[in-house]
């Protein structure tokens, strides 16, 4: 169930714009933040709020990189694998993360803390190799710096 407060906030935001559907991504993001991912339930609620069909919302949700239609971990790690990060050794970061977290690319750790995903160039080529954790950029990263980052995220949940 969507909390009444969030629902009324979103309803008010939608009422302020000329065309409700221009708010589609904002509404999807807000519901994704609430549920942890953009679930079927969230999709139906977003469609309802925006006056769009669930199909129209799914056309958007399945298109974008940062909208997750399946459950993801509390922290989503996107490793940039485009040209400059690749030249600076993103493959070593991925191998280390897979090893350290015990998952493959695309997987989620058993404790539900981390999901590992690839991402195309994130626009931080001057800080390669770079990754996004919950949309925050980290780079240039060494294996040691990556370990410290994972340790900090883990400690915050223990």
């Amino acid at each position, binding site marked *: 169930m969507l909390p009444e407060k969030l629902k009324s906030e979103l309803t008010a935001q939608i009422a302020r714009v000329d065309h409700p559907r221009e708010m589609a991504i904002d509404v999807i*993001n807000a519901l994704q933040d609430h549920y942890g991912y953009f679930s079927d339930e969230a999709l139906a609620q977003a469609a309802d709020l925006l006056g769009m069909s669930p199909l129209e919302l799914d056309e*958007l949700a399945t298109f974008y990189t940062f909208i997750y239609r399946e459950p993801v971990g509390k922290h989503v790690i996107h490793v940039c694998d485009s040209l400059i990060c690749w030249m600076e050794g993103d493959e070593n970061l991925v191998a280390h993360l897979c090893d350290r977290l015990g998952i493959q690319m695309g997987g989620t750790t058993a404790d539900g803390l981390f999901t590992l995903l690839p991402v195309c*160039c994130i626009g931080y080529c001057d800080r390669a190799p770079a990754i996004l954790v919950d949309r925050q950029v980290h780079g240039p990263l060494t294996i040691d710096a990556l370990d410290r980052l994972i340790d900090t995220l883990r400690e915050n949940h223990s």
Partner: protein
Amino acid sequence: MTATYPQVLLKNRKPDRITTLSEYREAGGYEALRRVLTEMDRQEVKTRLADALLLGRGGAGFPAGIKVSTVAEDAPFPRYLVCNADEMEPGTFKDRVFLHAEPHMLIEGMALAAYSIRASHGIIFIRPEYESAAKILEREIGIARGEGLLGERILGSDYDFEIVVHRSGGRYICGEVTAQLNALQGRRPNPKQPPPYATDKGLWGLPTLANNVETLACIPHIVKNGAQWFKDLALTPEAAGTKLFCVSGKVNRPGCYELPLGIKLSEIIETCCGGMKDGATFKACLPGGASTGYLTADHYHIEMDFDSLKKARNRLGTGAVMVFDHHCCMVAATLNLTEFFARESCGWCTPCREGFPYLRDLLWRIENGQGEAGFIPMIKTMCRHLWKSYCAFAPGGVASIESLLMNFEDEVMAHIEGKGCPFKK
């Protein structure tokens, strides 16, 4: 370093914060907007843009003065101005650096561009990875509104203009203007072939002018200092203005540098970026993002402007210079770029959707010792087919592959004949 060349867009850049509204005004900011609203007519703004030969900085290099004039005088209202801050071309981060330095220069540039076409609604379309810039813009738009520089009756005139920030869900194709307009309207962002052009029927069927961040940021300076001043900033007679070059890869100091158009590639690498990393040798670069072709050492001293790159059968693109040294395998690099285009194809048309995975597969086989000489004509044919795709995405995506075969065929053959990558031995 770059101090020897005039700085315009990044003149007051600070290491860790933006130029505030009061600092921007002290440096002459919003003076162009005041003058336009009190002393100049709309046509004068358009004339200055056209005379300044300002070419779009987002990749296509289309003349901004021509684009602005395609909004018809009797076109319906409301009219829209879209600022493209999507910046998803691999290697490109200039707009990110700029937005974290001079948000008010963009706001003023948007207000001026909007005024010239009588647009009342401004939208900044921004990629999700730039959330910190989106927050800065929203805050500074609010501050500007509080000072009467945006909103109703700007600076006491009868002109109203509002700006909102629109966050994308994140896909490369959203940088293409027709796809971006679909995205802004809550539709799946597949591109659309014009006509109608956006300036005729864009957002919600109404006139919409779309420009890149850097293009809009140039406008206050052109209005204030005139077209000739802007043209004189460039080092080559055909070019005009400065350019934000963002350099990455195998150089000592990757970063974003404001330099005159027409500066030599060698000077960018050696003087601004401190030369090649670890004393390596320059092998090639992509001059303007992943959608441009390789420039080899033969072009090491090329003048970096739109015309010179065109003469070299290449493109300046976004000015994202990605540098390779002699240790880099160009087949592997091209495979990485092709992977990018295979993943980011929106899937709307068959040549693009099917062609990139096919090309990726052939390049993967060559890189991994399974290549055959017969692959080369197959790749060339497929690249030609991709020119027949629906939008500019695929022709951009095959630029690196075509230039790989044009400039590095020996290297490709060495992979095929040696049954593996010679750089991994």
